[in-house]
């Protein structure tokens, strides 16, 4: 087993998430009842016995830091290596679609200090359960300097090289004019580039539309769901200490995902409920996603809605979106009347 440093690029923000992305990086967006998007990359690291992870952040990373803590859930609270959360610094580049070489250079110590030979760079908004050890072996066998992982034409945002190569690319970026690894792969100047094709399920979550679509795909497609959320290779996340979900006398639940700590009196169909969600009697939740700690009153109707955390929806309210444009209810809102 080859050891590697895992660099998680949690710098990405996007205008495509409405307010879901306003106060948290995409990497910290809650996903599929109990996870955050950053968990998928971290879990692939965990299963490859990765013991050294650097997470690059930008702007407010409070929710991400809260989630990662000292990294104990991913076996990263260690004496040697472990988890490093690297704070944001001001860059003089016009835009940053993925982690810039300039940002890597601000924290070049991470690369200097790592005692591993290889490095894998991943973004914080990919949903997968990839075997990083396997990818690393394919990279090593290729004999080339830098590998980019693709699914068909899609660039997964996963790059593999030696730490030495990444250091070289980072330090020579002002000279080559490359902003980031994507630039380098498009037009390699100093290194040889290999492409690794994957065939396993892989999704990038780049908008609210993607978010809703991929969530529903994983709810509806049992084969894909079982390939991502494997029993013997689980996605690892911060644990929540709550009681089992209480499905009450008049509740009806069909084709849905539920989590612990919820108390459900209403009807739930084709929906995903995070933990500690309360649903009152006579309510109908269809084709919707409800985040942690939200309270849905009595006789409420939700259809094609994504409800963020800590939301209160009063009795009798009807909220409707559409399959292609789900209605988004921001964190901590109190909804007193109908919306669509």
């Amino acid at each position: 087993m080859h050891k590697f440093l895992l660099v998680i690029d949690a710098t990405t923000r996007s205008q495509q998430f409405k307010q879901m992305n306003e106060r948290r990086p995409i990497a910290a967006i809650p996903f599929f009842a109990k996870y955050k998007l950053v968990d998928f990359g971290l879990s692939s690291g965990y299963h490859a016995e990765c013991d050294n992870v650097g997470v690059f952040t930008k702007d407010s990373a409070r929710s991400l830091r809260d989630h990662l803590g000292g990294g104990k859930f991913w076996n990263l609270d260690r004496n040697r290596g472990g988890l490093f959360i690297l704070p944001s610094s001001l860059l003089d580049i016009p835009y940053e679609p993925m982690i810039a070489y300039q940002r890597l250079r601000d924290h070049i110590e991470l690369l200097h200090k790592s005692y591993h030979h290889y490095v894998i760079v991943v973004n914080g908004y990919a949903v997968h359960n990839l075997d990083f050890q396997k990818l690393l072996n394919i990279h090593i066998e290729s004999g080339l300097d830098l590998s980019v992982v693709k699914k068909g034409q899609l660039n997964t945002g996963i790059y593999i090289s030696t730490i030495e190569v990444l250091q070289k690319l980072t330090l020579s970026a002002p000279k080559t004019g490359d902003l980031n690894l994507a630039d380098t792969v498009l037009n390699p100047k100093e290194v040889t580039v290999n492409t690794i094709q994957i065939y396993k399920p892989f999704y990038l979550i780049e908008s609210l539309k993607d978010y809703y679509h991929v969530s529903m795909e994983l709810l509806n497609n049992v084969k894909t769901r079982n390939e991502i959320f494997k029993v013997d290779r689980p996605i690892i996340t911060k644990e929540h200490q709550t009681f089992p979900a209480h499905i009450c006398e008049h509740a009806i639940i069909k084709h849905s995902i539920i989590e612990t700590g919820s108390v459900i009196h209403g009807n739930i169909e084709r929906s995903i409920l995070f933990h500690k969600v309360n649903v009152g009697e006579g309510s109908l939740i269809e084709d919707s996603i409800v985040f942690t700690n939200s309270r849905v009153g009595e006789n409420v109707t939700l259809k094609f809605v994504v409800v963020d955390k800590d939301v209160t929806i009063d009795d009798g309210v009807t909220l409707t979106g559409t399959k292609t444009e789900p209605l988004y209810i921001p964190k901590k809102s109190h909804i007193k009347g109908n919306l669509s």
Partner: protein
Amino acid sequence: MAKEIVAMLLAGGQGTRLYDLTDTNAKPAVSFGGHYKIIDFSLSNCLHSQINTVGILTQYEPFELTRHVGNGAAWELDIQNGGLSILSPYQNSAQQFFYKGTAHAIYANMHFLDYYHPKHVLILSGDHIYKMDYMKMLVEHEKRDADLSIAVMDVPLKEASRFGVMITNDQYEIVDFEEKPENPKSTLASMGIYIFKYSSLKQFLKSELEKEDTNYDFGQDIIPAMVHANKKVYAHVFEGYWKDVGTIQSLWQSNMDLIEPGANHLDLEDNLWKIYSKSVNARPAYIGDTATIVDSLIDEGTSIEGLVVKSVISLNVTIEEGAKVSNSVVLPGAVIEEDVEIDYAIVDEHVVVPHGTVIKGTPDNIQLISKKSLGGKHHA
């Protein structure tokens, strides 16, 4: 290094009245309430009572138990000065210390207590379901300058004969006691939870356990000796939900109490007194198209396509289409195959109940469905 109080949790008993559930598992490591193990309740009580030094005394089938508690991090017991210690039987140059009884287990670990040199020692059982603030008991114990305080519950007279019963004066000082009396003189039943002044505990362990006819037991030896020696032995009256889950019937009833809470119930949903357990990394539960769930507890990792009524469905349980589970407790990892009917039963961990099986108990005769009872089919 000296501590105000150290807790000693007795978790070594075999629990023979739970039959197959404790074949390869200690009683405190038996699953409870869909999400927990029995020992989580005592350990969570310690956390909420600010007790940060706990010795767990293991003997019978300790593997699952020690794996579950780990380094105690779930109960904030992974600390430098104190924290969690697993105290298993050992031998030294003079003798072997296999635990011969509750008092002997403490006696054999006096070196552990001496190291922390506590003023008081709290003795707990690992097989009770309850929420209790031990600090309240300690405050009363200190105020009375007691040598020993015994937690008691006021039970109905007709139930009192199932317990050790404390006879007290009007100051709750214990003047006598009876073990499972036919005609109880008191309704104050011992809960098996004690706080000793450490100096008194040490004195009586030494004097009593060295007698030839000793039973090595708190109830039979230490407590009577202290009462008869006119030591200050007091009852601490506890009000709230408490259940000894030492039998199939009581284990089932206590699980059902979570679904149909009576006037005096255990509130798992209380955020101020959460019950903590080990993290397991299970997937969220999936409820399928053909599922119907009525008034039940559903834990993580479950996949349900059948009918579930008034039942506790634990971690990673699968219930297939056409199966009917009612008034039952299904323990972690069990698989209920198609068209199975189960009523008034406990299904043991990792048991596969094969297609078409029908097992029905009654409220007074809860069926235990185990690998043994089904003839050895085992889910890997």
